[in-house]
């Protein structure tokens, strides 16, 4: 069920909308640090398939998650037209590889509808609500569920 608190949507929130494989997604813009073009990433050995690798963000090592792969959507080879959304929630900084950033939406609590029940698949696990905008269906995703919760593994 769509819980407003889970979605981080307040009375009025700004969401960043973007496209992956011709589907529209969005999440709270407060998590976004910057948006930049695609640069080839350095592959990390033994990483999950949705981790593209790491890039140099002004001296910091930032891992890139291929959102298409993460959401089990078709994964094309990234080109210079792809966009990386650099996000940070509490801890680690992570880049999300998407096809294009399309819009910034201003929404209220009432605009968010619960996700319809469909046969469960990977991409639905992360979709926490739906917003209609300009006749498009925009899927709100749980960004914290996509990112790792704790940085590092040092014990």
């Amino acid at each position: 069920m769509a819980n407003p608190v889970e979605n981080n949507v307040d009375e009025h929130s700004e969401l960043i909308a973007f496209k992956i494989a011709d589907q529209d997604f969005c999440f709270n813009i407060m998590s976004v640090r910057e948006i930049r073009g695609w640069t080839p990433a350095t592959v990390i050995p033994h990483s999950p398939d949705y981790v593209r690798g790491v890039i140099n963000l002004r001296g910091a090592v930032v891992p890139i998650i291929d959102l298409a792969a993460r959401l089990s959507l078709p994964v094309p080879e990234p080109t210079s037209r792809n966009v990386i959304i650099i996000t940070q929630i509490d801890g680690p900084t992570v880049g999300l590889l998407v096809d294009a950033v399309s819009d910034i939406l201003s929404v209220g609590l009432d605009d968010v509808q619960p996700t319809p029940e469909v046969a469960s698949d990977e991409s639905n696990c992360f979709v926490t609500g739906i917003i209609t905008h300009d006749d498009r269906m925009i899927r709100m995703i749980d960004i914290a569920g996509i990112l790792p919760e704790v940085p590092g593994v040092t014990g």
Partner: protein
Amino acid sequence: MTTMDELKVTFFQESEGLLEELADGLEQMSDGAEDREIVNSVFRAVHSIKGGAGAFSIDEVVRFAHRYENTLDALRNDSLTATAPVLEALMAAADHLAALLEAARDGTETEPSHSDSLIARLAELTGEDADAAPEAPIDFAPMTIEIGGLGGPKDLTLAIWFRPHAALYDTGNEAAFLLREVADLGDAEVRCDTTDLPEFEALNPNGAYLSWNVTLTTEASETAAQEVFEFVEDVCDLTVGPADAGAPAASLPELPVLTAPDPVPEAVEDTPAAEVEAEVEAEVVSPKSTAPAGGSQNGSVAATIRVELNRIDRMINLVGELVINQAMLTQCVRRNGYSEGDDIDAGLDELRTLTRQIQDSVMAIRAQPVKALFQRMSRIAREAGNEAGKSVRIATEGAATEIDKTVIEKLADPLTHMIRNAVDHGLETAEVRAAGDKETVGTITLSASHMSGRVVIEISDNGAGINRERVRQIAVDKGLIAADAPLTPAEIDNLIFAPGFSTATTVSSLSGRGVGMDVVKRAIQSLGGRVTIASEPGQGSTFTINLPLTLAVLDGMVVEVGGQTVVVPISAIIETMRLDAGQFFGLGTDSHVVRIRGNYVPILDVGAVLGYRAPVDDPENRVFLLVETAEGSRSALLIDAIHDQRQVVIKGLETNYGQVDGVAAATILGDGRIALILDPAAIVTGPVAADTAFPSTFAEAG
């Protein structure tokens, strides 16, 4: 943060330095040093801590430090001799003082009974009554201030009487600043005269009631002293003249001391007005008193400044960027057709040298001797020994060895654990030791040294050594190994590093808190280090920690593997080579070894180990790096090509990602791209299991 809070932070930082001085002095004394100056420095350290603690009303510290000081005073005036039991009590007291300060800093409570028992122990030494109240309540205590121009001829002693009018304060002047300026001229003893202070009801907050008497011993002239007051001449009463013959310089305290005004006289203590005064006095004392405490009071140590660590870190980051930038520039120049020997090339060479020097200098700022860490460990060992009822002697070697500050900080936890383990599991009780013909006091030796670009820290005890029977049994019980597994003694010893292994049958307050040596091992690995163990039954165990000098840079060989550029630390590489087909031999199903000068060395295909590509079938066309790990085993790493050799700045992967097996860290190359730095030892030791290879954070997220 208020000024007071800032001062408090400074006080705690300085206390650390003072505690170090204290521990140092006690150690020298227990080594038999007879120097009176050592006793003095120990006394001064405790005294300064007491003074500072008084200023911040940390009563428990003041109470304890006061008794401690009394005992040290007895030592100073020879009414007490520094015998072994005395020193033991003094060391215990120093440990407790450190604990009290720590508690005060962290805002935690301490058990007063512990203080009381130690106070009683100290009082017993000097033969005084432990319950006797300190002579005077201490609102704040005099602090010693180091003033320039020590040791020079001091031919003039001036008496200055200074009484500001209210108008002085009205015009924005401040008596404290003037007095401080006077103190800068030489050795000054400042006394505040409060006799004119009215009852609180009659007190006009804008009035001026205080006057000061200053006895100044100075090389400067009378005029110089008068000049200090030049701008307030018309708003104060002032007399400056030679002091009475009865007060020559020799009668001043042996140290150059600016004594703050005496503690509030008892007569006015109950009136709130006294607080006004106390505040004024505190202002005189605190800002300057912070200056000398961390440094030396005998002037023999080089001048130091205190800098926030994050400023240095920022600088190190910038220098790191500079190194990368310089590399990029060099590449760029080469690409544009300038060849070696051009002016521009010479300039670039110069730039490289300079950059390297800057980097070395910045790194040197971060390097610190391990002494403070070792002292802390000594304290922990003594505490642990007390709790376990074992007598422990700590010996340290190479305390001057310098390591990066970050490494030192991160070493504290694992070392604490290892020391506690050594006391708890390693050393036997006195009875057992006596029965085994050993000295009843167990010894733990901490040593640090530099060895081929790395730091080696050893913790050895002369205890029972590892009980291999028991270790093996426990490992079998816990399902870590098969009951009939054939293990060498060294392999059994290494079982204690296995996750979930803990030999303590009961959970004592010392070790066995659920964390085991595996945590220690991981902590040290995360510093790019290794820990190994050597144990001799009946003789004791030695843990050896091998660490990189710094976490910030390393010399690396830039190589290509499976289309990716990776960096291999030069420190691990013995040689690079190409091999003929005849030197390869198969071993088992898909392992290969290579014969190098008569020795057989296993081949590891780095590209395949990291999963970049399938194993190659034409090893004779590839390049090999012969590497040796800290444990001494050799392997030949198969790579595709060697590009370059250069210094790289280490960037952690942990911040945003997690640890990766076989990868030590990352770095940024001249073209701005990230290259991974290999961890040859991890590649050599571990067949990387697919299910454990994900960094746990990302695996969980999936």
